[in-house]
C-alpha cells in the first residue's frame, strides 16, 4: 500500500499549465484518473497556486509512470520536468507542509487550510477518499493548527508592501478611514497602490505630472485625481503619502513646505513612504513631530530582518511536521491484519468481561456450575460474532501491509483506544 502525491505548484509550473487541470475537479475526472492509475483512493487539491493528486495504490513498480501518464493524457502536455512526485513519508510530510502553508506563495496565509478541507469534503462526497486519505487529511489539519499556534510563521511580513502596511497599522487606528495620496501614476505606483487597497485603504487621491494618467489610475481604484500643482492642498488632507515619482534635481516635498503643511493639518500624523529612486522627499521631514518618514531602503531592511526571523520559525515548524509524520506512519503500521485482529478480539473480550462483572454481582443465587455455563456461553457468543469479520479480513488481506479494511474495522469498533490501553499496560 503506497500513499503518493503528484503535483504542480507555483514554483514548478506556470499558471497556464496548472490551469489545464481545472477540469480534474470533477467526480468523473477523478474516477477516470483512479481507473488509469489503479488507485484505491484519491483526493484532488486544486487552488490558484497548485494542482495535486493524492492517491493510495497497491505497492507495485512503475507507479510514477502510471501517475504521469494519466495526468499527461488529461492535459495533453509532457509534465516530466514540471511536476513533483513523493511517496510514503515524503508524501505525508508534503501534505502537512502544504496544509500548514509552508509551501504557499505567501507563507503562513490561512486560506490553504480551508481549501484542503474543501478538497477532502468533495472527495468524501464522491466516495474517492477512503480511510487512509481521510485520516491523512484530517491529520494534516490538526498539524496545521499546531504549526499556526506554536510558531510565528505567518507573523512576519517579508514583502516591502506588507511591511509598509504593517507600519501604517502601527500609526493609524483604522486604515479604512484614512486618505492615501499617491504621487505618480507609473507601474511602481500602481503596484504599491494595489497592495494598500487590498489591505483596506479606501480613500485615494492620485496626483501626477500629467493629469490624464492620474485620472486613469484613479478611475480604476475609485479615487480622485489631480496634478502636481494640487500637491500642497493634497498634503493637508492626506494621512498616508506614497511617493513614486522622482524629480531630476531636488525634492518634491521639502522640509519648510512640510512645516507649513503641518500647521494647516493641526499636527495630524502623516506617514510618508518614499519608494521613488532617487528619493523624492527630503529625508529631514522625518525629524518633524507627527511625521513618519520611511524610504524604500528602510522597508527593505525590515523585510530582510523579518525574513531571517521567519526562517527560524520555519525550523520549528519542520520539527512539528516530522513529528506528526512519524505519528501518522505509526498509525499506518498499526493497520496490518494481525494487530487489527488482535485488538478486535481484545475489544470483544473486554466488553464480555465488563458485562459479566456487572451482572454476576446481581445473580447471587446462581450456582458455581451455572456460572461456568454463563462464562462459556458468552465466550462462544463473542467468538461467533467475531468469526465473520475476522475471516473477511483474512481473505482480503492477501496483500501485506496496511489495508484500508483494517482502518474501517478499527474505526467501527473504536479499536484504537484498545490499542492505546494495551500499550499503556506494557
Amino acid at each position, binding site marked *: 500500500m503506497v500513499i503518493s502525491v503528484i503535483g504542480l505548484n507555483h514554483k514548478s509550473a506556470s499558471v497556464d499549465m496548472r490551469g489545464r487541470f481545472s477540469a480534474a475537479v470533477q467526480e468523473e475526472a477523478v474516477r477516470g484518473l483512479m481507473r488509469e492509475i489503479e488507485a484505491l483512493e484519491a483526493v484532488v487539491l486544486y487552488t490558484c497556486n497548485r494542482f495535486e493528486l493524492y492517491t493510495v495504490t497497491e505497492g507495485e513498480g512503475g507507479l510514477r509512470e502510471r501517475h504521469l501518464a494519466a495526468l499527461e493524457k488529461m492535459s495533453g502536455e509532457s509534465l516530466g520536468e514540471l511536476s513533483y512526485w513523493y511517496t510514503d513519508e515524503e508524501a505525508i510530510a508534503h501534505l502537512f507542509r502544504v496544509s500548514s502553508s509552508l509551501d504557499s506563495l505567501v507563507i503562513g496565509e490561512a486560506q490553504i487550510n480551508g481549501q484542503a478541507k474543501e478538497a477532502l469534503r468533495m472527495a468524501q462526497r464522491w466516495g474517492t477518499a477512503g480511510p487512509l486519505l481521510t485520516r491523512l487529511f484530517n491529520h494534516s489539519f490538526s498539524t496545521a493548527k499546531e504549526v499556526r499556534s506554536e510558531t510565528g510563521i505567518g507573523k*512576519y511580513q517579508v514583502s516591502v508592501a506588507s511591511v509598509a502596511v504593517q507600519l501604517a497599522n*502601527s500609526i*493609524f487606528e483604522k486604515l479604512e478611514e484614512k486618505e492615501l495620496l499617491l504621487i505618480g501614476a507609473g507601474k511602481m505606483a500602481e503596484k504599491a497602490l494595489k497592495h494598500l487597497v487590498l489591505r483596506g485603504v479606501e480613500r485615494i487621491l492620485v496626483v501626477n505630472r500629467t493629469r490624464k494618467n492620474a485620472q486613469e489610475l484613479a478611475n480604476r481604484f475609485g479615487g480622485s485625481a489631480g496634478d502636481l500643482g494640487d500637491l500642497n492642498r493634497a498634503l493637508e488632507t492626506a494621512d498616508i503619502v506614497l511617493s513614486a515619482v522622482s524629480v531630476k534635481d531636488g525634492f518634491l516635498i521639502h522640509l519648510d513646505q512640510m512645516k507649513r503643511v503641518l500647521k494647516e493639518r493641526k499636527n*495630524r500624523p502623516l506617514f510618508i513612504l518614499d519608494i521613488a529612486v532617487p528619493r523624492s522627499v527630503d529625508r529631514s521631514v*522625518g525629524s518633524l513631530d507627527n511625521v513618519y518618514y520611511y524610504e524604500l531602503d528602510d522597508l527593505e531592511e525590515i523585510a530582510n530582518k523579518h525574513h531571517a526571523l521567519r526562517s527560524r520559525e520555519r525550523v520549528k515548524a519542520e520539527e512539528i511536521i516530522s513529528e506528526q509524520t512519524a505519528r501518522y506512519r505509526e498509525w499506518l503500521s498499526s493497520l496490518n491484519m494481525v494487530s487489527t485482529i488482535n485488538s478486535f478480539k481484545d475489544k470483544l473480550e473486554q466488553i464480555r468481561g465488563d458485562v459479566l462483572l456487572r451482572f454476576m454481582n446481581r445473580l447471587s443465587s446462581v450456582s458455581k456450575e451455572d456460572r461456568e455455563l454463563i462464562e462459556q456461553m458468552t465466550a462462544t457468543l463473542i467468538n461467533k460474532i467475531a468469526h465473520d469479520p475476522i475471516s473477511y479480513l483474512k481473505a482480503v488481506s492477501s496483500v501485506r501491509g496496511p489495508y484500508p479494511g483494517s482502518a474501517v474495522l478499527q474505526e467501527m469498533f473504536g479499536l484504537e483506544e484498545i490499542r492505546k490501553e494495551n500499550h499503556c499496560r506494557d
Partner: protein
Amino acid sequence: MSDFVVPIAGILYLGGGLLHFFALVTERKEVERFALFSFVVGFFLHLGFLFFQYRESGVESVRSIPFASVFVSCCLVALYLCIGKVRRQPSLGALIGLAAFAVSTVFWLKPTLGREIGSAWDSDLFPIHVTLTLMGYSFFALAGCSALLYLLAERGIKQKWKWPLFFVLPSLESLDKLSIHAVTNGFALLTFGLATGVVLSRQEWGAYWYWDPKWVLSLLIWMVYALLIQVRLFRGVRGRKLAYLCLVGFAAVLFTFAGLQLLFNTKHVFV
C-alpha cells in the same frame, strides 16, 4: 480578612500584568484571557473588601484603612477592563497591572492613619470629595500608562527599530485618543472633587483657600490638565508633546498623592 485580601488582590494585579506581558511576547490569546481573569478576580476581591469595610464602619472605613490605595488600584483595573476590546491590548494591560500593583503595595505599607481631623469626617460631602478625586486620579493613571506606551511606540517608529515586537504595540493614534479621553474624564471628576474639597475646607477650617502645599499642588494639577486639554482642542497639539504633558501631570499627581506629607507639613493630613 483585610490582612490577606488586599495583598492577594495586589498580587493578582501583578500576575495579570506579567501574564499580559507574556501574552504580548508569545501573541497567545488564551494567555491574555488568563491575564484578564486575574484582573477581574483581583478587582472583585478589592471591591468586596471595600464593601465589607463600609458596611462595618461606614465612612470611618476611609480612615481605618489606607483606603486610597485600594480604591485607586481597583479603579484603574476596572477602567482597563471597561475601555473596550479593541483598546485592551496586552502591552497596555501589562503596564496597568504593574501600576495597579505598585499603587496597592506602596500604600499598603503605609501605616494606618490615626489622626483626628474633626468634623469634616461627618460631612456628607466628605465621601463624595474623596471618591471623585481618587477616580479622577485613576483616569490620570490610565492616561499616564497610555502616554508612556505612546512614547515607546513613537520612538520605535521614528527611529526605525527593526525588532518585530513593536509591531504588536497598539497604534499611535489609538494610544493618543485613549490618553486624551482619559484625561478629559479625569479632569471633569477632579474638578468636581476639588470643588467639594473647597466647600469642605470652608466647613472644617473656615476658609475656602489656604496657602497650603496640598491646596497649591492640587490647583497645579488641575491647571496642568486644563492646559493639556486646552492645547489639544485649540492648538492641535498632539502626539509626543501631549504624551509628555500627560506624564508631567501624572508625576504631579503621584507627588501630591504620595510624597507630599513626607516633605511638607499640611493641614490635609489624609492622602
